[in-house]
């Protein structure tokens, strides 16, 4: 009798569980799994966006082509360089800002809002403003530098394209990271910091040995998201590009997904483009797995984790 009651309750719990996760599950299947599988199927064909009536099976031909495409290796190398610079800088800047704005200072709310604001501005507007800001001839940046160094005409987009992109990414991304770090910082019990201070620890030692270890789950979360975002960078370098809207980025900003965009939209190689995206997907999965694997050595959870 008791057993049957227990089974009934377990079934009701399971039903509730599946009902609650159903909206996400349906969305994940329709917007995640199905497009992924369609992409995989497309990557095995010569699909060009129109030729559904004349589709040909290419097998692994599109994947073999990747090995012969010089731009793949080049663009992937540039993407790794951007990721290697953008990820640590972004996390450090967001953590630094969050730490500063976690102090009780006057105007804290205003500063938090100001730093978060760029994060909610659409990227198209951000890049347009930046283009005007850093323009060689009429940009405010060169005008300001010109106050101390007359006739300054630095070609920011031409000579420092990746640096500009990193700065732009920081400007837009740091606010979002800051908010998450702030939430993490506010979750750290004051008693722990006070105990450390009573034991004689200075500000830096409290941060290094109490705050930072307890923030590592947030750092881990930010790290994963930043790596994925940086490996997929596309819109900002495209919009930041040279001579007109829809132009090509300078060679230094010719990133992996820019190359994919080129293959799909300039050359109508939807099949090859999706093959390239599947390779990127596998790379992201492997990198994420490596970061997850490393987490056991540096991420500290307040509760014991089952491995």
């Amino acid at each position: 009798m008791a057993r049957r009651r227990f089974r009934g309750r377990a079934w009701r719990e399971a039903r509730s569980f599946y009902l609650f996760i159903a909206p996400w599950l349906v969305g994940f299947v329709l917007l995640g799994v199905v497009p992924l599988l369609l992409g995989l199927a497309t990557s095995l064909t010569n699909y060009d966006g129109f030729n559904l009536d004349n589709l040909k099976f290419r097998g692994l031909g599109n994947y073999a082509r990747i090995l012969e495409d010089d731009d793949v290796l080049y663009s992937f190398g540039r993407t790794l360089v951007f990721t290697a610079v953008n990820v640590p800088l972004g996390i450090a800047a967001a953590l630094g800002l969050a730490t500063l704005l976690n102090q009780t200072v006057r105007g804290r709310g205003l500063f938090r809002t100001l730093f978060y604001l760029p994060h909610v501005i659409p990227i198209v507007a951000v890049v347009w403003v930046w283009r005007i800001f850093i323009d060689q001839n009429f940009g405010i940046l060169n005008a300001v530098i010109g106050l101390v160094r007359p006739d300054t005409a630095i070609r920011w987009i031409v000579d420092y394209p990746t640096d500009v992109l990193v700065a732009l990414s920081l400007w837009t991304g740091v606010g979002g990271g800051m908010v998450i770090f702030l939430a993490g910082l506010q979750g750290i019990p004051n008693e722990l910091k006070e105990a450390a201070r009573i034991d004689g620890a200075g500000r830096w030692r409290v941060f290094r040995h109490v705050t930072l270890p307890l923030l590592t789950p947030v750092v881990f979360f930010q790290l994963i998201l930043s790596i994925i975002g940086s490996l997929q960078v596309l819109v900002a370098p495209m919009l930041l590009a040279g001579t007109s809207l829809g132009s090509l980025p300078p060679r230094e900003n010719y990133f992996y997904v820019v190359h994919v965009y080129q293959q799909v939209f300039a050359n109508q190689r939807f099949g090859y483009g999706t093959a390239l995206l599947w390779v990127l997907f596998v790379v992201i999965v492997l990198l994420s797995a490596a970061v997850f694997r490393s987490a056991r050595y540096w991420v500290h959870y307040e509760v014991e984790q089952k491995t």
Partner: protein
Amino acid sequence: MVGFGYHNQWFDRILEVQLNEKGASLWAPDFSALKLTTPEAREALQYWFDLDKKNVTFNPLNPAASWPGDQFTKSQAALVQYGYWFSAMAESDQTKGNVVKLPSPSWGPQHKSPTITATGHLIHDKTKVFDEAWKVYEWFSAGDPSVERAKSGWGVPALKSQFKLMPTESPFQKQVQKVLQKELAMSDVAVKFNPYINVSENVSRNTFNSAYVKQLEAALKGQITVDQLLANVEKEVNAAIKEGIDRLK
């Protein structure tokens, strides 16, 4: 700041018109290949490359802050290559009274002034609502919206009956009309577009223009010669043409 701004989204068609004026073309007669190493193509591309190299025009190493038309109206570009439609916006607060419409440039003995871009509509041949679609088409292309467009000066009307509606009040509009009438006499020719590749007006989606811009940056930096630029573009575009043909087989 530049002396001359051309719309690089239209580079493929500008180049094709140039070559047509010399009786040549970018494309093989059956569109199966791009022909950039002919003397005519080489000469035309060298002209553009020299403009880029001397920074007379916007290029990957001398980018525009926005688009040439915008920079012209801000008095940041002296000369821009646009058709009649641009006369509707050429006179800004900064340029008013100082703008003049020049006749189209000529590259060869057969001066041509075709439409290289336009607004149009397609009705799918398998549509089940052809009559309704046609009514919308008629209304938009010959009804009130088209009258408004003709009066505004944003583009030459598609209907000759609406030519008289084009604005001619200001001295600039009158001058534009004089130039336009002569251009119209040379406009009854069509530009050839290769049907096997993408000819989008967005550089990064246009097979020829994107390949050209990519190689142009390397050539302007001295990493490749002009001949290598032409050979690389030809190779890249011809591979895309071959695939385009293959997809239709």
